[in-house]
């Protein structure tokens, strides 16, 4: 940021430059230019940036997606008071995309659009996400949904979405994930992946009854992938979270497997 050491820029303005860069991926210099021309009005500056084809002006070509159209679509759904698509906007977006909000595919979409939490889409993530997916109209977006569903079949993508889900589902300012929410998302994501999902949920409600840590959330997927059906290869001394160890013990007893 040595560029700004001249001192003529106020902290508030610096913040706006940052946001501008966030939305447009332009460099600081361009951001400053557009903001100055638009009297430091962020929204106007961004609009102007896309209207003048500023995207190409800063040397990057955004093939496949018209940034102006995308920005306009964002504005259509966005909350009147905040620069974000919130509950109402999400609902009508889902309607327009013809997607059930409880469909697992919404998680993939949220992941692509870098939604920080449920029913909260930001302009930056929106622009980048859709651009990467090559969509700038509702129709194109609707068409891309089935391919998003396909992505869940790729194990490494699934892990990304799964791990992302933790922070997505978590309540604001909370470190861990409330048990009910965690279970709801597990049931959404792991229904056909985890043979003992019901037992896991039963165990959590009966013995744990507390929030789930990020570590446990992430490691559960690894656990499902590496352990065999009767947990014979599970080693309680290795790096698994204690909660998973206790589950194995619980499950072995319930299912009548010999502890090996």
């Amino acid at each position, binding site marked *: 940021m040595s560029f700004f050491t001249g001192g003529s820029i106020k902290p508030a303005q610096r913040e706006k430059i940052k946001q501008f860069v966030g939305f447009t991926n332009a460099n600081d210099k361009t951001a400053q230019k557009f903001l100055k021309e638009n009297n430091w009005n962020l929204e106007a500056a961004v609009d102007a940036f896309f209207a003048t084809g500023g995207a190409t002006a800063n040397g990057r070509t955004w093939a496949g997606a018209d940034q102006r159209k995308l920005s306009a679509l964002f504005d259509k759904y966005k909350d009147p008071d905040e620069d974000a698509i919130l509950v109402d906007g999400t609902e009508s977006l889902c309607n327009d995309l013809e997607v059930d909000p409880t469909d697992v595919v919404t998680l993939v979409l949220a992941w692509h659009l870098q939604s920080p939490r449920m029913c909260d889409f930001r302009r930056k993530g929106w622009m980048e996400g859709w651009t990467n997916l090559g969509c700038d109209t509702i129709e194109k977006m609707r068409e891309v949904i089935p391919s998003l569903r396909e992505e869940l079949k790729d194990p490494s993508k699934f892990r990304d979405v799964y791990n992302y889900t933790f922070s997505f589902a978590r309540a604001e300012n909370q470190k861990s994930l409330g048990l009910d929410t965690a279970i709801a998302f597990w049931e959404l994501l792991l229904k056909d992946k985890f043979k003992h999902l019901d037992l896991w949920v039963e165990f959590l409600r009966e013995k744990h009854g507390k929030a789930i*840590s*990020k*570590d446990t959330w992430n490691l559960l997927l690894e656990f499902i992938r590496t352990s065999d059906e009767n947990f014979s290869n599970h080693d309680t*001394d290795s*790096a*698994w979270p*204690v909660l998973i160890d206790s589950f194995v013990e619980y499950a072995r007893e319930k299912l009548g497997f010999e502890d090996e």
Partner: protein
Amino acid sequence: MSLRPKRVDFNASFPAFRQELLNMFHSTTARAKVSGIDMFQQVYDLCTSYPKPHTELLFQSIGDLLREHVSGVLQTILSRDDVVTAYAREWEKYRVAANYANIICEYLNRMLLKMRPPFGDTKRPFSHGRYLKLSVEALAFHIWKETVLAGLQTHHGNRLVFQLLDWIRQDRDGHIVLHDVIYNAINSLVQLNQHTDQPLQLYIEMFENPYLEDTRDYYARESNTQIAQDRISCYMRKIHERLADEGARSARFCHPTSLERVIKECELQCITAHHRELYAEFRVILENERFADCILAYSLLSRSADGISAMLDIFENFIITIARDVIGRLGSSLTKDPREYAESLMSLQAKYMGMCDEVFAGNLAFTAAVDKAFRSIVNTAIPSTSSSAAELLARYCDLLLKRTAKGLVESEVDDKLSRMITLFKYLDDKDVFQKFYSRMIAKRLIYGTSVSEEAELNMLSRLKAACGVEYTSKLQRMFTDVTISNDLNVGFSKFAQLNSINLGTEFSILVLTAGSWPLSASASGFVLPSALEKSVSQFTTFYGKHHNGRKLTWLHHLARADVKINHMDKRYELNVSLYQLGVLLLFNVTPSLTIHDIIHQTKLNSSEVERILKIFVDINLLTVIDTQTYIVNHGFASKRTKIKINTALQTETPQEVTAARKAVDEDRKLYLQAAIVRIMKSRKELSHTQLVQQVIDQAKVNFAPSIPVIKRCIEQLIEKQYIDRVPHTRDRYVYIS
């Protein structure tokens, strides 16, 4: 003697030589009848004859002669019933003669060096090794092997060896046999092969192998009958003797190299084959403390390498069972009085350690088994109490170090404490011991109930030696505080004199470093009796002058006071707690008080006040006039003039114990987390196993952490973002700086 070569006709001169040679082999006193020097000349002449020397011819002819002689010898041997004696006698004659012949034919031998031996080809049967160099003696021995030995073995049912084995069996059974004859016969097999490259092969093949087989059969039979007939301890004694005998027998009859093999064969049959019975007996021996048998069992079973390991297990389990029994018999009384617990374990430990020396020849594996047993004993929960061994041992130290009516002599205390340390070293939970020990030492120091400062310091240095400086640093600090406080008190009374301050009371104070003592300020807002206010405020001033910036927190609940009662029949002196004093002094001002008055004036909580009043009423110092009002009982009388009024504070309450145990758990968690962060900070990235191992290593001095506890700490640190898992792995951690 002439050295000049001559022309010699072999056929003419050989017969005379031949006759002389035959005489040698036929006679037992060869030297008397033959002329060595003539023969030597004859050999020389034949070997140097020209135009052609008769070297080869001479050698062959000697061979023919010996073959003829030896077949006669074989017939002589076979004609006797006692083949062994005959063989041994004939062999001795033959050996001596062959030796002389060899000397006489020295010149021939020298000529033969250049020739390849015509016999001793390893491919031929009954050859037993290649001849290194040719000589008449080698030839003679070879012919003996070929004719006599082969003849006895192949054509006459191996009679020699059969009879030898039979005689040795008779020797074992206690019959008298001819030891020299047996030895000579066996030794001939070694002598016969001495000129070959495998000098022992003949002996091994012809005798040792069948002998070992025979030994095996003999002892298999004998041990089976013996063990069925006898008590095991008798059997062991017999076997012990047998092994010694067999060693001597082997030395008497066999080549030294056989000893080991023979003994091993015996051990296999007598010990290894019956090890189950022997191990069972070992247990019984231990139970009955038959130490002589124990030594015997050890000396037998330790002969085989893996014989010991089963003994060690038995020994270890036996000790554990014994100790558990002792502990079990103590029941729940051991919490109150851990003396018997500690002392019986101490004496058991000393006893079995002593046994290692006396019975098991100081074998370190046995010492280690004792250690292992005691480690298991002190680290397993005791069924009859919730107290752990660490707690009990700390309490035991307290009992020893506290001044009591029936005190021990100081040297006894010291001795017991130093033995206690051996048990202490077995503890995994040294931190638990430390926690309890520090609470008790605090009380001893505050109330001045220690046996002696020296005893306390001795104990501290023992703990320091066992666990390091860090372990005792807080305890040490407590001592320093007490010493400094003594100086402070002297300084303060001088200060009072100098400034002519009349405090009105005697006053002694302990200034304790916060954090080093397991103490915390009391929550009650106790109002200091006015008689003491001046002392406290003056001391605060005094202390503030010397130590600028230090803050004094008064722990009134720990203070005690001596107070004199002046208006009764005698001048009684009461030793009370400061709270009790606070209550008593109120009666100086007001003759009758209600509970509410007291609570109001002292600001103590009601349960505390009730407890204090109850004690005073119980000893008749106060009287209740109606349910709520108390007055001083002026008729108070007691045999003693000095009365000590106990408070609950001096004995441990169950709440304190639980609190202490809980505090240990908390300390451990912090300790482990700190250790994990420290390790990860220096190593940056580690696998789960490595991290866990290093944490265990670091904690070992204080306690043995369980893996789930370590894992929980790791998880907490991940949550707090001190460390993280390496992305896409599940068993590696990385430090977050």
